[in-house]
């Protein structure tokens, strides 16, 4: 009876000890030194692994930061807060990424933009692009099928009335959505409290744009003429506002005949905190 219990207990203990010894040996032999700073910094980062910094993930970014001590390396998502919390750890002042936010250069909802025909098939922008730009006549319009939605880790994107809407408060500016867009209607713009923005990217001539959409930029150049800061230029049949020159006076929004200029309010303080 005692032997019946003893034999398995002893044999299992011996096996466990032997295997434990192996683990100790292996961990000693294959030990790789890693600066503990890397882990500390990784923990401070947003850890969304979005890649906006240029590195595949947050831990790689941290490793690069510790290794190179390059003050120019910055996390666009974390911005100021991250720079301030990581700087002291490394004993230096880190550059602060200029905060950006994603913006869509289109207002073509189903109400405003003319549609082509009913589209039956895969609900994906890239797939729909193969047949007459999916659902809308304008070649520069958001197709509204939402290929970009899955790219966003922060839930800042949604589709409403056949058009992509961006929640500026949730957007961290990682820029992952941009490459998912086949129409190239998304772009990153500097985050500022009040911002005037041309929400159209149609390079069609005015008459054609008017045919396709009620709210498209028809390149009438009125905003270009009236802008006191000379921040607006019309190139390729579409106006563009230079956000660095813009003084946010709002003159352009009043003169625009098609209402293709919009005012966006960003809460600049909102940040992903670690």
């Amino acid at each position, binding site marked *: 009876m005692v032997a019946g219990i003893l034999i398995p207990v002893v044999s299992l203990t011996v096996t466990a000890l032997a295997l434990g010894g192996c683990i100790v040996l292996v961990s000693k032999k294959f030990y790789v030194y890693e600066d503990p700073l890397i882990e500390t910094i990784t923990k401070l980062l947003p850890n969304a692994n979005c890649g906006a910094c240029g590195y595949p993930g947050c831990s790689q970014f941290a490793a690069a930061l510790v290794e190179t001590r390059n003050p120019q390396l910055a996390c666009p998502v974390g911005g100021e807060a991250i720079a301030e919390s990581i700087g002291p750890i490394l004993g230096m002042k880190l550059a602060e990424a200029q905060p950006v936010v994603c913006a869509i250069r289109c207002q073509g909802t189903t109400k405003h933009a003319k549609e*082509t*025909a*009913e*589209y*039956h*098939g895969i609900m994906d922008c890239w797939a729909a692009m*193969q*047949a*007459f730009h999916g659902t809308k006549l304008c070649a520069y319009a958001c197709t509204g099928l939402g290929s970009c939605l899955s790219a966003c880790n922060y839930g800042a994107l949604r589709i409403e009335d056949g058009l992509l809407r961006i929640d500026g408060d949730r957007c961290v500016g990682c820029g992952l959505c941009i490459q998912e867009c086949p129409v190239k209607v998304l772009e990153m713009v500097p985050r500022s409290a009040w911002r005037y923005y041309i929400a159209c990217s149609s390079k069609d001539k005015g008459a054609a744009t008017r045919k396709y959409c009620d709210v498209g930029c028809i390149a009438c150049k009125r905003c270009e003429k009236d802008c006191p800061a000379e921040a607006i230029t019309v190139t390729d049949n579409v106006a563009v506002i230079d956000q660095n020159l813009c003084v946010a006076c709002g003159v352009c929004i009043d003169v625009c005949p098609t209402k293709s200029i919009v005012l966006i309010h960003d809460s600049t303080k909102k940040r992903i905190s670690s």
Partner: protein
Amino acid sequence: MAAEPDRLIVSYAPHLRSSDSIEKVMYTVAAALLPATAASIYYFGLRALFVTIVAVLSSVLFEFLMNKIRRREHLTCFDGSAVVTGLLLALNIPASLPYGMVILGSFIAIVITKELFGGLGYNPFNPVLVGRVFLLISFPVAMTHWPAPHVVDMVTAASPLGILKTDGVAAVSNLSFWQLFFGEIAGSMGETSSLAILLGAIVLFFRGYITLTIPLAFIGTTAMFTGIFYIADPARYASPLFHLMTGGLLLGAFFMATDWVTSPMTRRGQIIFGCGCGFLTGLIRLFGGYPEGVAFSILIMNAFVPLLDRWDLLSLKSKREVA
């Protein structure tokens, strides 16, 4: 009509589709199972009919509930797959099984084996067989006591395979070939009549919904395996013909091993799958603890399907690269 139609639809080529849809295939399979169901009612009476109705209705109901719970936009409970599951489950159990157990079997098949894995197309194991095996392990007595054919008051008897297991070859030598062929033996509702099963299988084959690769490999391997032992010692082992005609071999080979979702997609995989099923069935029947091994062997081989498919894919790739 004017030259310009009001409503034009942009869709992708091909604009022509074959008439085979999931619904059509599933209801054809259900129709192909009707001979076996009719045979079960003929041999086991009205109770067989009630068991079938309970199994089908509960399967459809469970699928409907899962559709609702998963908030499916389109209901899948009427596409026929639940009906086929219910029908097959009924054919896989004794006619004397209490209704509660039948419903439990449907629950295991539809909810646990199919819907929890994602619904039709995603289940790695055959729902019916999981249901059957679950019942067999949970209620071994109820699942191994079959009513004898044409007996009204549900006197239970052992199946030919059960007798073979416990009493040896001599005990089953009184069963004639025609008895086995028409199904005048004790057994699960749909497994007894080889004729009815073959009728259904012929329908499926000519509609192109099953290929003969898996059934032939399956049946052939079982026949060979049992045949070798029969030749070596006919006094101890039953003949391969006996093995083919009894138990769930034909039903399993034609209707369950050929299930699209849980069988390999290419011919080479199908041959290996069929042979594996046959070998395991023979092994379990001759040397295992259970008298019958079709359900277990198909389930075991189901687990190998992703591997077989992947192997085929890899070899296809490398062949292309070398060529």
